[in-house]
C-alpha cells in the first residue's frame, strides 16, 4: 500500500515539473534578416513548434536608422527587445555598399558588446567532404585586434593599420574559452598566435591565456603558431579541440574550418556579449538570387538555433532537433540543392518536423 502512495507521489512530482517546464516559455528575439532570411526563419520556427520547444519568438527588424546626433544605430525596439530577452537568433543581413551606414553586423557587435564569436565545426554525416572526423570549436575575440578599424594615411602611398591588443579583452576571451570548454566537456584549449613575429601584441594575448589557464587546471592548455595550425588542420583536423585566438586569425581559421565541414551553408555560429546577451546567427550570405523561391537551405540557421537551445540549458530539445536534422541529411532522400538534392526548403523542413514528431 505504501509503495503505491510512493508511486503516486513521484509521478505527481514529475507531472508538476513537466507542467512547470512547459510554462517556463522563454522569449527569444528573432531577426529574420534579408534575402533568404525570412524563409529560413519560418522553417526554424516550424521545426521548433513541431519539437514543442518552450520558445516564444519576438520578431524585430534591425535596419539601421540615424539616431539623434547623426550617429547610426539599430532601432530602439530591437535594442529593447534584445536587452530584455537576452537571447537572439539572427538570419543573414545585407550590407548595401553605398548605404552610408557601417556594416549591420558591426553595429550589432558594438551595441551589445559581442566579444566572443563561437563556431563549432562538426563533420556532418551524409554531407561528404574530403575531411571526415572534424570536431572542433573556434572561439574568436571579436572586438579588437586587427579589426580595430583604426587606419591612417601617413603620406601619400603609405598606409598604417593599427592592431590593438588589450589585457582586458584578452583575459575576457580566454576566460570565456575555458568556461566553454568546461561547460561542454571539452578536453583542451589551444591558443593560436603569432607571438614569434608580433612579440609584444600576441605576446600579451598569450600571457593572458596562460594566466587564465592556471585557474582551469581541469582543461588542458596548449599554444600553437597560426601557420602550424593551418598546416596541421588541413592534414589532420582531428587533433584540434577548442581554439581561442584574436580577431583576424579567428576570422580566417573559423572560415577554414567551415570549409572543412562543407561551407557556410551548414555552419552554426554564436556571438556572446557582456551582460549575458547572446546572438546566434547563420553566417552565410543573403543569397538574393534564390530568395523567395523556396530553395534555401535552413541548416545553418537551424544548427545555430540548436546551439542557442544548448546555451539556454534546453539540452533535450536541442538533441532532438539536431538528431532529426542530421538524420534527414544522412538519409539523403530530401536534400536542398546546395546539399546535392532537388527538394524544396519546405519539403526539407517538413521532413525534419516529421522526424522530430516521430521521436516523441
Amino acid at each position, binding site marked *: 500500500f505504501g509503495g503505491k502512495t510512493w508511486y503516486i507521489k513521484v509521478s505527481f512530482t514529475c507531472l508538476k515539473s513537466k507542467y512547470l517546464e512547459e510554462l517556463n516559455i522563454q522569449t527569444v528575439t528573432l531577426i529574420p534578416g534579408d534575402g533568404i532570411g525570412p524563409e529560413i526563419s519560418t522553417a526554424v520556427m516550424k521545426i521548433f513548434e513541431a519539437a514543442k520547444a518552450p520558445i516564444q519568438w519576438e520578431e524585430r527588424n534591425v535596419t539601421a536608422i540615424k539616431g539623434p546626433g547623426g550617429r547610426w544605430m539599430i532601432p530602439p525596439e530591437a535594442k529593447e527587445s534584445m536587452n530584455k530577452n537576452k537571447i537572439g537568433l539572427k538570419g543573414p543581413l545585407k550590407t548595401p555598399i553605398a548605404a552610408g551606414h557601417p556594416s549591420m553586423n558591426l553595429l550589432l557587435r558594438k551595441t551589445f558588446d559581442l566579444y566572443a564569436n563561437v563556431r563549432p565545426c562538426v563533420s556532418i554525416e551524409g554531407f561528404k*567532404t*574530403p*575531411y571526415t572526423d572534424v570536431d572542433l570549436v573556434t572561439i574568436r575575440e571579436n572586438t579588437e585586434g*586587427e*579589426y580595430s*578599424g583604426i*587606419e*591612417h*594615411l601617413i603620406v*601619400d*602611398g*603609405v*598606409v*598604417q*593599420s*593599427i*592592431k*590593438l*591588443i*588589450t*589585457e*582586458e579583452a584578452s583575459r575576457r576571451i580566454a576566460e570565456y574559452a575555458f568556461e566553454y570548454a568546461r561547460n561542454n566537456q571539452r578536453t583542451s584549449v589551444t591558443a593560436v598566435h*603569432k*607571438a*614569434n*613575429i*608580433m*612579440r*609584444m*601584441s600576441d*605576446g*600579451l594575448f*598569450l600571457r593572458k591565456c596562460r594566466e587564465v589557464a592556471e585557474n582551469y587546471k581541469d582543461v588542458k592548455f596548449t599554444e600553437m603558431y*597560426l*601557420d*602550424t595550425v*593551418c*598546416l*596541421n*588542420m*588541413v*592534414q589532420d583536423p582531428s587533433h584540434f579541440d577548442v581554439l581561442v585566438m584574436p580577431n*583576424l586569425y579567428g*576570422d*580566417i*581559421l*573559423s*572560415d*577554414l574550418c*567551415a*570549409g*572543412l565541414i562543407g*561551407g*557556410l551553408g551548414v555552419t552554426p555560429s554564436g556571438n556572446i556579449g557582456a551582460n549575458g546577451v547572446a546572438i546566434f546567427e547563420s553566417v552565410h550570405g543573403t543569397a538574393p538570387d534564390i530568395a523567395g523561391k523556396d530553395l534555401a537551405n535552413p541548416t545553418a540557421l537551424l544548427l545555430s538555433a540548436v546551439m542557442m537551445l544548448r546555451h539556454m540549458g534546453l539540452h533535450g530539445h536541442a538533441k532532438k532537433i539536431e538528431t532529426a536534422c542530421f538524420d534527414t541529411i544522412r538519409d539523403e532522400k530530401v536534400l536542398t540543392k546546395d546539399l546535392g538534392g532537388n527538394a524544396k526548403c519546405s519539403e526539407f523542413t517538413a521532413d525534419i518536423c516529421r522526424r522530430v514528431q516521430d521521436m516523441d
Partner: protein
Amino acid sequence: MMAAALRGSLVTLAKGLSGARLQPLCARSLSVTSSQNVSESPPARADSTFKVTMVPGDGVGPELMTAVKEVFKAADVPVEFEEFHLSEVQNMASEEKLEEVLSSMKNNRVAIKGKIHTPMEYKGELASYEMRLRRKLDLFANVVHVNSLPGYSTRHNNLDLVIIREQTEGEYSSLEHESVSGVVECLKIITREKSRRIAKFAFDYATKKGRSKVTAVHKANIMKLGDGLFLQSCAELAELYPKIKYETIIIDNCCMQLVQNPYQFDVLVMPNLYGNIIDNLAAGLVGGAGVVPGESYSAEYAVFETGARHPFAQAVGRNIANPTAMLLSASNMLRHLNLEYHSNMVSEAVKKVIKQGKVRTSDLGGYATSEEFTRAVISNLAV
C-alpha cells in the same frame, strides 16, 4: 579578352595622369625582372664552381643541409658552400655574424638556408634575425610553388599553385608599442611602392611561366585603407598585362575555397601575413612542410629554402625529418645557376624515390629515416 585588352590600352592612353604615373614604374621594373635571369649577371665563380652561401639555421636545418651536401657530392655538382651558423636561440648570433652572412651573400648572390628560429622573448629589438636578413637584402618576394608529388596522394591531387608573398612590410613591420600598461598597438604598414613591386613581380612571373590567372588576396572590406591600397596597386598593374586574368578574393573565403576547391586558383599574390597562412595551408594540402620548396627573391639576390618555414625542433636528432623540400629547393637553386643538367638530375631522383613509395619518411606515412631517404635519392641519381 580582346575587348579587355583594348579597354586596358585605351585607359592608359586616355588617363594622362595615370600614364605619367606609370612612367617611373617602367623604369624601376628593369631591376626587378633581372632577378629572374641570372645569365645577365652570373654570381661569383671560382674555378668554374659556384660559391653559394649556406645558413643551416635551427631545428632540423643542419640535418637537411647535410642531406643536400651529400646529394650534391654524389651528383658531382660544381657548387661550393660557404657555411655560416647564425642562430638566435643558440646564442650564436651577434651583429658581426649577421654582417658576415650579409657580405657573403652580397658576394655570392645565391644562398640556401634553413629556418632561423625566433624565440618569443625579445631582448631590445623586436625584429628577428630572419626579418632583418630579409630587410637588409630586400628579399621582397617569396615564391612557393605548390605541386602535388606524383605517387603520393592526398585529399586533393594534381595541384599546381604558385603563392607569391610580399615579404618585407605588412604585418611584420616589428613596430609595436605599449601605449599604457595593458594596451598594445602593432602597426601594419602598406606602401604603394612595395605593393606595386610585388604585383609587378607576380604578373611578370605569371607571364614568364605561362600562367593564365593572378588572384590578389586581401581583406579590404575591413582594412579599407591598408589592403585597399594593396588592391589598388594590383589592379593598376593588371591593366599592363591584358593577357593575364586578374581576380581578387577575400582571405577568409580564399582559405575556405582552398580546402573545398583548390583547382580554381593559379597564381596568388598577397601581403605578408596572409602569405604565411596560405603558404602553410597549401603545403598541408600536398603533404606538409617536408615536401614543398620555396624561394625568396630581391632585385639582386636569390635565397632558396623550404616553402613552409618551421624549425621542427621536436625532430632534432631523431633523424625523421623529410629532406624532400630542401632537396627540391636545392634543385631549383641549380636551375637558377643555369646548371640545368644537375638540377634535373637531383629533382628526378627525388621524385622517383617518392613515386616508388618504398622509402618514405614518417610525415608521408613511411618508416624510413632521413639518412635512408637521402641514400635512396643518391642511388637513384642518373649519373
